[in-house]
């Protein structure tokens, strides 16, 4: 295939206009010896018919399109409304660049403004940005902001954060600057965190619900962090936030809420897609806005006085501020934020809450069924949202294998994160799972557990 817009004849006339004899004359500054003579050793060209054949075959090597998923761990098989897909695939949204010329980008800009508005509402914060790469880098950016804001270097991260989020934090911040506290018993434990706090700590990062699906005690963590002069950073699931008091809200005792709320926005209308593209969201207090990473859309008016939107505070960003920028992020996850905006718009006030409630009901139903299967038990005792850890009578890998044979992906084998977790299965149940599917899932557990 070729999408080149020129014919050979046109090329010739263009070379004439340029004033050179042959194309190669245009390459005079390239050292001869590095100019490739031979075609690149890549396959193709393939027509669309052949591409469909090849990628279709590859896609069927995955189990995903013929298996019922109980996988979670940050990314979930949530319902995606049909209308969302129809809207998001429009060229106007997919093939536009970053809205640098607002006069011809009000579509993207208005949607970003709506995204910011709904994320701020969902997290209980004052402002939100236009997106970051994923939940993990959003947590990194929160840590970096906290460091700048406090002038302190160390970051405390709960051990109940997603192991991959911890790993990314470690990569960006360095081993030395990161202290992992609490969490291995299931909950972060405000006491464990308080114990780790010190005057060099910039912030405390915890997840709510956490990696094990458990609800934390956000207020206690916020109080501990604030008492030590550190910022409190919550990593939240956006579906859970439709039901739970948002961490940004003040505590029941009036104590201050989290300073920054970040998270993974994939559940808002985006497919898991083997883990990418994802959608990092970032919300914080208005007071921190000038240190925020990423793009921000703001309301203004045009020359005719009509409402419109523009990117604002660009002086925070790399293309203006260069090495002094608040972050190096440039390309973000715009289309996923658009999808999330449409998702939240379609589901709306009632739909968001219903999704969250269905998750809770179905997850607890599954947990009850599982607990009744001989040999299985819940690993933790606390309240959980749409995910729980199951202690299996056999290695979790045996359960996932048994499930695959039955067209069920029964959960995430936690053995991949720690050897001592190899009998642990992390199970997520979304609103998409029917009672019948949950029953089939329980049967897989039974079969794997009894070794048949």
């Amino acid at each position, binding site marked *: 295939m070729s999408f080149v817009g020129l014919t050979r004849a046109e090329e010739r006339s263009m070379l004439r206009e340029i004033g050179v004899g042959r194309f190669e004359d245009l390459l005079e500054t390239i050292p001869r010896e590095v100019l490739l003579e031979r075609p690149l050793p890549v396959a193709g060209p393939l027509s669309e018919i052949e591409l*469909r054949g090849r990628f279709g075959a590859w896609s069927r090597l995955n189990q995903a399109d013929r298996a019922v998923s109980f996988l979670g761990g940050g990314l979930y098989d949530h319902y995606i409304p049909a209308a969302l897909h129809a809207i998001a695939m429009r060229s106007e949204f997919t093939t536009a660049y970053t809205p640098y010329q607002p006069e011809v980008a009000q579509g993207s800009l208005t949607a970003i403004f709506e995204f910011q508005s709904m994320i701020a509402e969902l997290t209980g914060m004052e402002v939100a940005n236009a997106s970051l790469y994923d939940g993990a880098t959003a947590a990194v950016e929160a840590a970096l902001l906290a460091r700048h804001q406090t002038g302190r270097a160390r970051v405390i991260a709960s051990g109940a954060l997603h192991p991959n989020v911890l790993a990314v934090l470690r990569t960006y911040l360095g081993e030395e600057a990161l202290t992992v506290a609490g969490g291995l018993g299931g909950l972060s434990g405000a006491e464990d965190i308080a114990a780790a706090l010190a005057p060099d700590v910039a912030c405390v990062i915890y997840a709510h619900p956490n990696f094990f699906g458990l609800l934390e005690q956000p207020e206690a963590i916020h109080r501990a962090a604030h008492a030590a002069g550190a910022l409190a950073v919550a990593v939240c699931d956006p579906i859970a936030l439709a039901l739970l008091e948002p961490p940004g809200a003040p505590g029941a005792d009036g104590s201050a809420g989290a300073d920054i709320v970040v998270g993974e926005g994939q559940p808002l209308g985006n497919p898991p897609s083997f883990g990418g593209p994802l959608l990092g969201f970032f919300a914080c207090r208005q007071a921190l806005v000038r240190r925020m990473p990423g793009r921000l859309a703001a309301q203004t008016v045009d020359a005719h006085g009509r409402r419109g939107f523009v990117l604002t505070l660009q002086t925070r960003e790399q293309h203006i501020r260069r090495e002094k920028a608040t972050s190096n992020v440039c390309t973000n996850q715009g289309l996923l934020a658009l999808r999330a905006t449409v998702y939240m718009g379609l589901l709306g006030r009632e739909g968001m809450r219903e999704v969250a409630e269905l998750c809770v009901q179905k997850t607890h139903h599954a947990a009850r069924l599982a607990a009744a299967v001989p040999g299985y038990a819940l690993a933790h005792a606390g309240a959980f949202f749409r995910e729980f850890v199951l202690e299996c009578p056999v290695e979790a890998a045996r359960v996932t294998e048994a499930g695959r044979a039955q067209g069920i992906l029964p959960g995430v084998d936690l053995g991949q994160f720690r050897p001592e977790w190899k009998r642990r299965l992390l199970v997520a149940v979304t609103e998409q799972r029917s009672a019948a599917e949950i029953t089939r899932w329980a049967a897989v557990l039974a079969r794997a557990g009894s070794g048949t």
Partner: protein
Amino acid sequence: MRLERRLLIEQGGAGHRGPALPACDVPSRPLAELLPGARLRDGLAFPQVSEPEVVRHFIELSVLNHHIDRGFYPLGSCTMKHNPKINDELAGLPGFALDHPLAGEAASQGSLRVIHELEQALLAITGFAAVTTQPAAGAQGEMTALLMIRAWHRSRGEGDRRKRVIVPDSAHGTNPASVNLSGYEAVTIASGEHATVDLGALGKALDERTAAVMLTVPNTLGLFEPRIREVTALAHQAGAQVYMDGANMNALVGLVRPADLGFDCMHLNLHKTFSTPHGGGGPGAGPVAVSAHLEPFLPVPRVIEKNGTLSLEVDRPHSIGRVHSAHGNFGILVRALAYILGLGPEGLKGVSRAAILNANYLMRRLAKTYELPHAEHCMHEFVLSGRGLKKYGVRTLDVAKRLLDFGVHAPTVYFPLIVEEALMIEPTETETLDRLDHFAAAMERIAKEAAETPQLLHEAPHSTPASRLDEGRAARELKLRWETPSAGSPEPAVEPARR
């Protein structure tokens, strides 16, 4: 209030709702019992709008955008080329879209295959020894590479000494920002003539504290650095690594392999060179390709093949660690691989050829009307200066805004910083001669308008969905979220559309 352009929150209201969820088909229990001790929120001030109206809202918004499927988009440094729909279709195959990164290797052989095949193709194209597809964008690629360079220096006991990274003043903003983010100190050197490297300045800046040099090839004026191999050799002599910002790879694909120029590593922007759609700001993907000596430091996990089976290697003691929650922007990787395989070797070579041809054609034509800061042929893009119009009180910004009236997007303006009133124009290879000529004619007409009716340009654009927006007010008022309207909004006023 008019019916058009209302925000979602200003529509509908209590009682309106979108698509239904299924009834609960499992035994249901009170939330307080299931979530003991949890504080539930009082309310969620989200919109309440029916599905038909939500659809209309976003359709209405969509058509306010300029986009590549609508017209010319010569945004320099952004490579706004045609985005083949087949690539979106393939990335959307349920087997890919529904695959979960924690499903386990046995359940995801197809996805791992895509990553593996793409890696092989990118190595062929760049000439490097190994590549990671984990970075989610170019900037993250830069950061990833710098962390690897740091790890390499540390592995040689030079980590403490080498703390500086040299960046030309013409570099893209992400370069110095990534330097800073990775804990290095950015040392800016002034560009030589035409944004080429000033070998003297570089030589002076290089010393035993230098960890790396970051260069953009072709540079931000669209020129190929003629002495590039001397530059990389010089840096290597000083013990530094040389990083190539590969965002401009559209000029080189199939023509030159960056590894052959002496670079140690580079990032690619799949959302530029490899045609994945920009999505109004993202997502992209910024794979990093490296020479063999940097391979041990690549992020984990790595996709490896053994006897035809693919697996994820995590146990790599020298790795810098993870930079992404999963495996990078997989959906973008699918698209890029489809693009590469669709084009094949000849097609890929055709990309840079036509990109260079289109740019030179436009450049020579427009050099008759605007100021061109150099005489050389350009590669895939070029930079003009609009300073000649200043005498009429017309700035480059005015030219950019007026262009919108001709149904084309504006070039990148005021970048690179080293050219006064810069207009950075990248036509890409997928544009036709018709489109180039139309753009050139518009630019010429605007130059004429600048002399004759400058006011027209100051007030431009005139035919766009919005006229010029007040950016100062936006920054002053900082309205970053909507206000939830009070109940009982008035009957919408009725106005015919303006034209």
